[in-house]
């Protein structure tokens, strides 16, 4: 196993809807943006972390092109970052196959008489058109942006208070600005060793490659070149061969390695980015780090 972090391009296209792999909400979204013309491209990037958002080892037909690259590391390999959803009581059994098991889970939820978070684990449920789902991904992201950026953790903070900070002559408070930018897909990017951060528009990219390229352009050509900065950060920022690794904070506040999940899922859950020194990336991807150390040979 090579252990290089290779970018995944876009969604898990080509995934047949008859796959029994459970699909989180995001899986549904990524399926929605899968188009036949892209399918071959997106699955052929070689070994990388994760697979179509799969929390199972289901590597059926659509994943067959991955098989030859060795073992696919999935979210299960990183217990600290597994979505809390799969830990909901009684729901974990649903995580194995989509609609088939739902009937069993139904009986579970009968007994408990309370929501168990099943709806996020069942294919095609709730019944909302794929197109609308895509739009909702962006809406939900923006809403979470409200709560996070105002620095409040509580869930019942009235959202109206934040909206009032805008006034129509264009002046905006910083939290409102961020709020707006969240709608438009701008997220903050900070790089270790550089005090001033940047912002990148996620909606301007449709893949991890595009994003990586933009970030490399940004930080390679940054105005801070006077400072000690790795000029040869390398175009391989994200394949593990540089001193840096790209990470992101998701909407639950966890720091994750970029590249695991389909692009659209990533866009839907990312709050901000950090270009982190690989040496600090422990705990995010233990296996990855080990092999990365072995791999890395060029000095920075």
């Amino acid at each position: 196993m090579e252990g290089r972090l290779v970018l995944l391009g876009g969604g898990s296209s080509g995934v047949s809807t008859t796959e029994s792999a459970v699909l989180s909400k995001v899986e549904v979204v990524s399926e929605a943006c899968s188009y036949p013309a892209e399918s071959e491209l997106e699955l052929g990037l070689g070994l990388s972390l994760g697979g179509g958002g799969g929390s199972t080892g289901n590597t059926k037909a659509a994943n067959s092109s991955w098989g030859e690259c060795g073992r696919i590391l999935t979210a299960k390999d990183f217990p600290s970052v597994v979505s809390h959803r799969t830990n909901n009581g009684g729901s974990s059994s649903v995580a194995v196959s989509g609609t088939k098991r739902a009937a069993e889970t139904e009986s579970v939820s009968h007994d408990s008489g309370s929501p168990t978070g099943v709806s996020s684990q069942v294919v095609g449920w709730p019944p909302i058109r794929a197109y609308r789902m895509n739009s909702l991904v962006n809406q939900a992201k923006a809403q979470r942006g409200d709560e996070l950026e105002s620095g409040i953790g509580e869930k019942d903070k009235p959202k109206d208070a934040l909206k009032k900070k805008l006034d129509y002559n264009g002046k905006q408070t910083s939290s409102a600005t961020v709020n707006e930018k969240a709608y438009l897909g701008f997220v903050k990017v900070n790089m270790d060793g550089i005090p001033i951060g940047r912002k990148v528009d996620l909606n301007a990219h449709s893949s991890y490659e595009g994003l990586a390229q933009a970030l490399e352009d940004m930080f390679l050509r940054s105005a801070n070149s006077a400072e000690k900065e790795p000029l040869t950060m390398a175009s391989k920022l994200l394949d593990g061969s540089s001193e840096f690794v790209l990470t992101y904070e998701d909407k639950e506040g966890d720091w994750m390695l970029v590249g695991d999940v389909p692009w659209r899922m990533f866009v839907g859950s990312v709050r901000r980015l950090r270009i982190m020194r690989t040496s600090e990336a422990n705990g995010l991807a233990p296996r990855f780090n080990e092999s990365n150390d072995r791999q890395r040979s060029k000095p920075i």
Partner: protein
Amino acid sequence: MGSSELKRSKDSVSSDESARRSSFPDEVLERVLSLLKPHRDRSSVSLVCKDWYNAERWSRTHVFIGNCYSVSPEIVARRFPRIRSVTLKGKPRFSDFNLVPENWGADIHSWLVVFAAKYPFLEELRLKRMAISDESLEFLAISFPNFKALSLLSCDGFSTNGLAAIATHCKNLTELDIQENGVYDKGGSWLSCFPESFTSLEVLNFANLTSDINFDALEKLVGRCKSMRVLKLNRSVSLEQLQRLLVNAPRLAELGTGSFSQELTIREYEELESTLSNCKIMHTLSGLWDAKGIYLPTLYPACSNLTFLNLSYAALQSVELAKLLAHCPRLKRLWVLDTVEDKGLEAVGLNCPLLEELRVFPADPFDDEIVHGVTEAGFLAVSFGCPRLHYVLYFCRQMTNAAVATIVQNCPDFTHFRLCIMNPGQPDYLTNEPMDEAFGAVVKTCTKLQRLSVSGLLTDLTFEYIGRYAKNLETLSVAFAGRSDWGMQCVLGGCPKLRKLEIRDCPFGNAALLSGLEKYESMRSLWMSACNVTMNGCRLLAREMPRLNVEVMKEDGSDDTQAYKVYVYRSIAGPRRDAPPSVLTL
């Protein structure tokens, strides 16, 4: 024209008796029937007698085909020689929710080939859930010189290149309506393909697309298409750009804005407000992506004649919605996100007495942990204030039997009742009982009910009620419900007008499936997935009912004796020949 004359004289020569019986010349009968529009009425008319059948088929200009596999294009062309407008629906509805494999079928191309030969003067094509490629779009664009209207809803398989072909070649285009499709967006240059001489567009809806379009091209297009009445922009169009477009098109009846959130200066705000206030005849408003509460007041003057407001992409809060609705007294249809919460729905009840349709979509359908969205209280509030309500689609996380009973008492005229309690199998949250009585109340009270979607914890009792009381029910959607075959048997044994039955994740098996043998021929289709139906049951059905197509979608790695997804539909075209390997026709 010549051939039709010939046909008619042949008919009258060969049957003197019928000429004596009928006092109308064929021409008169055809003229009268040509005024008849609803396709069901036309079907009834065609059954009266041979003369009427012929008159009807010669006078029909629009054909509606609810299941593209129920008939073949050749059969359609043979029966109806003078078609100018076609509406076709393809995949089963659950394909919208990714339950149908991508290569399932419903490809338009074979239809287009026949139409090009038989209906060279075709003007309109409206497709829903069909697969359409760029090649097909290009073929369409060049094969029909009179082509006027293209509407694609929930289709897939094409890219913006196909739209470019339409824009380039369709000189007489009046309508281009691209809605909620899985379109591969390769960029916005397609819009620039409309030639400078092109001025006929009346309806342009590209809200579906995400890429930036060339605004200059759009502005010029809107400027020269003086008859434009429907314009629905995509999210890439900013507020400032919207204002510039509206200056040229104040007579729009339907407007879909782009993104409603750009930073505006005071002057720009006032300009927008002023331009919008000129849009007095607007009756439909949509778009409003990322709508900022502070900019909504610019819309107020444009809302006085509004009958349809689609806020389902604008995450408004209750206060914002309330303020907006105060300016929409004539509202009949409202679509919102559940970010408006119950308080927002109270405002609906207070401000919109004429409301007939309400759809509440979940902003965050998968996050069960955050308590937000709408509850039974919101639905109740609307029902108290809006007695004319007859169409509802409501996504919520909790509901009670008592609330639903009250709601249908307030609004007994429901024709479409689609309630989605998002957690599968959830009971009445106050009493912990099944939701049987809720849907029982719906079917008992709402005698005009045509469409029902059920949810929550349901036993067979719900289906007993449905079978017994829902005399006008045509479409029933069931998920995660029922206890035994008896439930489905009740529905198939009752519901005389049932046409579409779609079921997923229910404990219905072969006995239930086979109890509807005769019924399926009077229905358009049956869908059953993740139920307890086996291959043997399906084979038996196929054997007993040769005029039904029984298709089973195989699931990788599943038990070979189980029929995981079953789609049954009546057809006069026989089994289809374009099924992919994963779909077995029995």
